[in-house]
């Protein structure tokens, strides 16, 4: 039975302090009726004997303390799910906004989900071919992985995310594939770019979109990724689909969290973000994965813009500690007109070794990528030296490496936006670059692989 109150005492930012409440539960969903008749939703954040702190998902403009009605619903925030969600667009709270009919729910799920029991997890091990060499060859994405893109404002992370969503496929598999997309506080134009991309390739039919734009209430943004992940879990673990979840931009999500935290007067951690930011992010990122005995999977690609390109900022920092690697975009490479501007050195895929090798990609993949990393690192070192001392001061070997690094960027990393390189092409490209180096420098690849895959140049 729903109880209705007219007893708001204070309104502070997005928070309402409701007095004289009885039998209200923590995390309960709240319906608000504004004096104008407008309706909104909120959630209980703190409940003591007679005061409930409610966080409103709507803007609190037009709300007052005397006439606003507060109704406690007796359950948490939930999402109606069904297979018909595919191809639809929802707002940040799960209401359809594409003019289509309401979803007839198969199930109604709490958006907070539940933690996967670690013993029930199945280890991600299926290589996903994204068609992008810098990812497939060097930092491969694996089904069930959470691999964020760390970007900066003005860098083409949206293009890259869209390209991955469009072209990803798993080698030798044709299971049902779906994309769940969550727009978190991004602009209309950016959101539209994604929707257009999905429409133009007919990918929209297997996509579910949740859109919270920059001018939507920030508090709603706290619910949006959880809506998206709840939908993804239903598609993956109930319907057995392979789901790719793209969430952009996590930075705006964290800022919304900070906004609510400061309204609650909580003790701030680094840079004003709440001390529980790590746990909060983890409850979302950890919803990626595979479960034993279930055919589906959830792969997450969260996108975040690093404030001032600073990787040590709390948002990328805590994200990096939770996710299984990161793809880092570099402004420097972008300026040199290389797309995708992926800086492969600080980028990392923690599941690389599990997703590649014989039977998955090819037996030489691991050694090859380690050798490319080492050679590229040596080339970058030579580059630094040549900046200070001039190229003439370099030894012949250093010059070879310098060349290698340049070729690596312009031939291996760089590719067209519509270019879909197969893993064989990527590997062949790697060997062809290595063939420029003296044989004695190739310490990380096996002799037999060199014999088999490297075409020796005629001198």
């Amino acid at each position, binding site marked *: 039975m729903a109880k209705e109150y007219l007893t708001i005492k204070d309104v502070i930012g997005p928070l309402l302090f409701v007095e004289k409440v009885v039998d209200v539960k923590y995390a*309960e969903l709240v319906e608000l009726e504004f004096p104008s008749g407008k309706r909104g939703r909120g959630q209980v954040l703190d409940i003591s004997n007679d005061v409930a702190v409610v966080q409103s998902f709507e803007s609190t403009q037009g709300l007052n303390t005397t006439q606003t009605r507060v109704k406690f619903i007796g359950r948490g925030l939930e999402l109606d799910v069904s297979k018909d969600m595919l191809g639809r667009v929802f707002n940040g709270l799960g209401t359809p906004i594409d003019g289509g009919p309401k979803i007839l729910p198969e199930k109604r799920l709490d958006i907070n989900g*539940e933690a996967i029991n670690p013993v029930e997890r199945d280890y991600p091990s299926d290589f996903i071919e994204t068609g992008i060499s810098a990812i497939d060859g060097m930092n491969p994405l694996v089904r069930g992985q959470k691999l964020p893109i760390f970007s900066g404002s003005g860098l083409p992370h949206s293009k890259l995310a869209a390209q991955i969503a469009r072209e990803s496929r798993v080698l030798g598999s044709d299971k049902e594939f779906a994309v769940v997309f969550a727009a978190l506080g991004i602009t209309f134009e950016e959101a539209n770019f994604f929707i257009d991309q999905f429409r133009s390739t007919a990918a929209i039919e297997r996509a579910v979109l949740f859109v919270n734009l920059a001018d939507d209430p920030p508090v709603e943004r706290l619910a949006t990724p959880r809506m998206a992940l709840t939908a993804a879990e239903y598609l993956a673990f109930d319907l057995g689909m392979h789901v790719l979840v793209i969430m952009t931009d996590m930075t705006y999500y964290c800022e919304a969290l900070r906004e609510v935290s400061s309204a609650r007067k909580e003790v701030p951690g680094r840079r004003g973000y709440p001390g529980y930011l790590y746990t909060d992010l983890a409850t979302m990122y950890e919803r990626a994965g595979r479960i034993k005995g279930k055919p589906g999977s959830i792969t997450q690609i969260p996108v975040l813009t690093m404030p001032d390109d600073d990787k040590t900022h709390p948002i990328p920092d*805590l994200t*990096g500690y939770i996710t299984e690697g990161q793809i880092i975009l570099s402004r420097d490479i972008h300026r040199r007109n290389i797309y995708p501007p992926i800086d492969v050195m600080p980028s990392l895929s923690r599941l690389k070794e599990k997703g590649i090798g014989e039977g998955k990609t090819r037996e030489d993949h691991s050694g090859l990528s380690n050798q490319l990393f080492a050679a590229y690192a040596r080339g970058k070192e030579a580059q630094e030296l040549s900046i200070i001392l001039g190229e003439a001061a370099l030894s012949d070997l250093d010059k070879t490496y310098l060349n290698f690094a340049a070729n690596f960027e312009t031939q291996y990393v760089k590719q067209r936006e519509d270019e879909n390189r197969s893993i064989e092409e990527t590997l062949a490209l790697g060997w062809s670059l290595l063939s420029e180096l003296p044989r004695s420098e190739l310490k990380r690849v096996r002799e037999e692989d060199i014999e088999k895959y490297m075409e020796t140049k005629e001198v």
Partner: protein
Amino acid sequence: MVKGEIVRVAGPLVVASGLKDAKMYDVVKVGSERLMGEIIELRGGLASIQVYEETAGLGPGDEVFATGEPLSLELGPGLLSSIYDGVQRPLAVLAEKSGSFMKRGIEAPGLNRTKKWAFEPSKKVGDQVSPGDIIGVVQETSIIVHKIMIPQDVEGRISEIRQGDFTVEEGVAVIEMADGSSAPVQMMQRWPVRIGRPYAAKMNPSEPLITGQRVIDTLFPIAKGGTACVPGPFGSGKTVIQHQLAKWADAEVIIFIGCGERGNEMTDVLLEFPELIDPHSGKPLMERTVLIANTSNMPVAAREASIYTGITIAEYFRDMGYNVALQADSTSRWAEALREMSGRLEEMPGEEGYPAYLSSRLAAFYERAGVVTALGEPERQGSITAIGSVSPPGGDLSEPVVQSTLRVVKVFWGLEDKLAYERHFPAINWLVSYSLYAEKLEEWWDEEIDKNFRTERREALKLLQIESELREIVRLIGVEALSPNERLILETARSIREDFLQQNAFFELDTYTSPKRQFLLLDLIITWHTLALEAVENGMSLEKIVTSPVREKIARAKLLTDNEIEEFAQIKEAIIAELEVSETVVEL
């Protein structure tokens, strides 16, 4: 049970009234689902409780029951090969009961109640026993003999002792106490997690914990019973190092605590360990391992408890006389859980919002490591080696968790992201890392492995140190400014880095190097350096030395196995031959 009532709920913190006589750190059951929690503050008749499960749906007026007992573990046969959450609930049992996702309010005892274990008594009726005495054994796994010890507060004469198959709750012996009462002894005993188990005496560590990781064993070794910390930014390989230690360390029992880390990492351990064979015993690694998994999305309060759960189990095996290695990945997540609860209690924050008692809690945790003589008969020594990883924000080592940890641990393996980017793994920076056990342990190496160990280890460290200075010079004025000797040092140091320090955890032949091979490998590089120096002085061209074919053999020597150990001698001969033959050429 005393019954109280909730007055406030804020995240994992619940405040309750009416819990008369409740004591600090007593366990309480909250709400109709009986969620487990622990009292962390008593103020003005109200008890603040940290709840180990999600609190959504709780509200004022809901009931709270005090159990009157502190958070305790069940210790006995069945611990090994288990995987527990932060409060010792077996995750496999939870999965059976509630499926793939963690549901709330499910209880499951830490030890299996129905499984029978074959108990073999080692004492007989009439024997006098006191706490810690071993009265019998159970072959728990094929490698670990579980010793059944007399619990605390039990002392007297054995009036009954039985042999045969029993569950952990069935009595295996009866002790006639001094006051005439009789105490039944079962294989399971309970112990509160926040109190260290008693021992007879503590000693200084003196033996190395061999990990098979060259940079650790040779350069920055840890002793059995020592403490170490592994700080590093994300992506620098903390978890891989922890996994490597859990796999290869020559401890008899491994306790691995996944504290607020990734779920997939625990899965990795779970799937991999049963397959991996322990190089020392030839049995699956899982048979000596206890896993505690409280992943980052599991309730934060249980994460706080998880490291205490881990170290209490470690102490229990230590008391049996085993060398235990405990790994906590990561203590930063534990500290954050502490911070979160402290914030909700509205305590005055210390540095970076962490509570002021952070460093004393950390110190108290690491102090539970060490080498001890256990209580009771027969006399035996056991040890706990505690290795904690730290995840400093932005890799900044000046932050409170790293600093508080460094004050208590003796070994510091500093990871660096720059090395990781170059795929130099393990990315342990050789210039900042240290081990306060190094000198003590050199004695062991000199005696057990080779008398030249100490000299060559120090030579290697010196070369690396000089290299960093020389690289500064090269960066400023170019390699031409260096003398041939100095250029040779650069070459050798690079060889130490690439051919010795770098070790591929994912490559079967490279993942573990025995102490003997570690020494032989280092010996090759240092021998090459010494002879090359002489050759330079005798006028041989540096170019020729540096490109000598034997260097490729040195580079591949790390992949030699223990069965191919004589090849090291061959390579050494080749070094001597190459550098000497050319010498005579020069003389001509």
